[in-house]
């Protein structure tokens, strides 16, 4: 299946770039403060932290559900600080989004929930049918495509949500606590699926989770947040890195160095 691309990142392109990004809901409460982050094409990144650390806000800024109060947000070449309302749909079509509470349409069956995403980007019906069934097959739900989603277990619902997020072949998959409502085994299965998507399709993945055990088992790059700040950025464990990567600790970086950093490198 050919990938649909509006923006075509070259290998190792920075696909998510945050520079000194802050988000304040009120004058007193800052959800994110001075966040600097770069995610390259094909990377798998965890964002972890305790409840209220600002990790979900960070993802909402990246998907432009929230607008940053200050700083520069650039995702897939879109400057989200200045993006017009009319350009948001085109930008979002490059993203696949998965939520903790699945957000499936309860009055429709499995197939319709996934096809819904294809309809929005106006895929012809024959091709849509092929794409939906392929994706359901990939997430292991093809035999239940006629089921109402309310008849599915939590893990199964998240598989369907994942299929919906991926069926349009997004360049970036954003998952906000995708395993938050699942037991440990099912959570691991879902993470394996997300890992497979990252490896097989080269989709850039950013997963928000507070589940330390999953993060530790996956050996991926980990961004840790605390009280709205990124306090550490730990690269993937060496055995899983394709190319050598620098260890990048924010605590050791001078603000001037960040300003001089070449984001298009």
């Amino acid at each position, binding site marked *: 299946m050919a990938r649909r691309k509006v923006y075509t990142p070259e290998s190792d392109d920075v696909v998510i770039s945050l520079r000194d990004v802050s988000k304040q809901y009120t004058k007193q409460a800052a959800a994110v403060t001075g966040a600097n982050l770069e995610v390259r094409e094909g990377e798998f990144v965890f964002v972890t932290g305790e409840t209220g650390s600002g990790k979900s806000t960070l993802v909402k800024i990246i*998907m432009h*559900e929230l607008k940053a109060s200050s700083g520069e947000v650039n995702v897939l070449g879109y400057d989200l600080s200045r993006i017009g*309302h*009319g350009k*948001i*749909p*085109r*930008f*979002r*079509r*490059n*993203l696949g*989004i998965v939520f903790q509470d699945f*957000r499936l*349409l309860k*009055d429709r069956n499995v197939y319709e929930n996934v096809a*819904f*995403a294809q*309809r*929005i*980007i*106006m895929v*012809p*019906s024959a091709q849509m049918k092929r794409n939906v069934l392929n994706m359901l097959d990939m997430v292991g739900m093809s035999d239940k495509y006629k089921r109402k989603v309310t008849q599915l277990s939590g893990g199964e619902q998240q598989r369907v949500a994942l299929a*919906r997020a991926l069926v*349009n072949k997004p360049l970036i998959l954003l998952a906000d606590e995708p395993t938050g409502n699942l037991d440990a085994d099912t959570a691991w299965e879902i993470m394996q699926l997300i890992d497979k998507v990252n490896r097989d399709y080269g989709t850039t993945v950013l997963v928000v989770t507070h589940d330390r055990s999953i993060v530790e088992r996956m050996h991926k790059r980990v961004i840790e947040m605390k009280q709205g700040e990124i306090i550490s950025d730990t690269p993937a464990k060496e055995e899983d890195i394709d190319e050598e990567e620098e260890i990048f600790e924010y605590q050791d970086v001078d603000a001037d160095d960040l300003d001089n950093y070449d984001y298009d490198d």
Partner: protein
Amino acid sequence: MRIGTFFYTIGQGFKNLFRNKGYTLASIATISACLFLFGMFFSVLTNFRHIVLRAEQGVSVTAFFHEEQGVTEEQILQLKVAIEEREEVASVEYITADEAWETFSEDYLGEYKDGFLENPLEGDDHLVIYLADVSQQSELVSYLENLDIVREVNRSETVADMLSGANRLIFYASIIIIAVLLVVSLFLISNTIASGITSHQDEITIMKYIGATDFYVRAPYVFEGLIIGVLGSVIPLALTHYVYERAIEIISGKFSMLSGLLDFLPVESVFYYLIPVSIGMGVGLGFIGSMLSVRKHLNV
């Protein structure tokens, strides 16, 4: 719009109608109630206006001339042509003194008219001027009074004032009542559709996350609003039609002695305007109501 999107919009629009049966019925009932009130009001007003207009047509101004000073029939006929060209004038009738006496004596004197050897109305050739616009009677009268050949002008000021006052009142009352009805309906319909849409909020949010355009999200709801608007206007039209016919039947039966005065418009001539206006208002209310209701959910 792609053909697939078109059919999707129609399909989803119909699905929404049936998915939220309660809200659909409430919306249709709201528009129906408002348009039924509008229809009844429109029918009464149109008939009232028709009766007033008919009364207005009977209002005339009569001009007499200085025939004793030698004003000729030719001069009067020239003036008739000039008056006929005036905007506020519907028609002008030239009545000679002989014709006037003939009519008067036949109406009021009968056989006693033979007692008059000469025409007592000699020198009273006159013009009877019927007005197209009663409110401009004064202008016409002052125009006539300023003419040298005119001796006297008779007019029915009280009737004219009352009729033009009634006409103005009907006009302003119509505008105010229609405006109030429209605002109330719009408020009710957008609230009803908004309640229906709240149950779709998840769906709209997901659509926006996936990258649906505002148009794509809005189209099924707007289509739903249009259908509600059409249904909400057809039902009260049928009801108004029935009530109108029955009302005329009852009033004509009970007040037959007033049949000369109460000249009702036939149902067709009222509905000639009421059908397009009601459907237009229903469709407009459905369209604007659904646009307003979806708008606040689009900023995701």
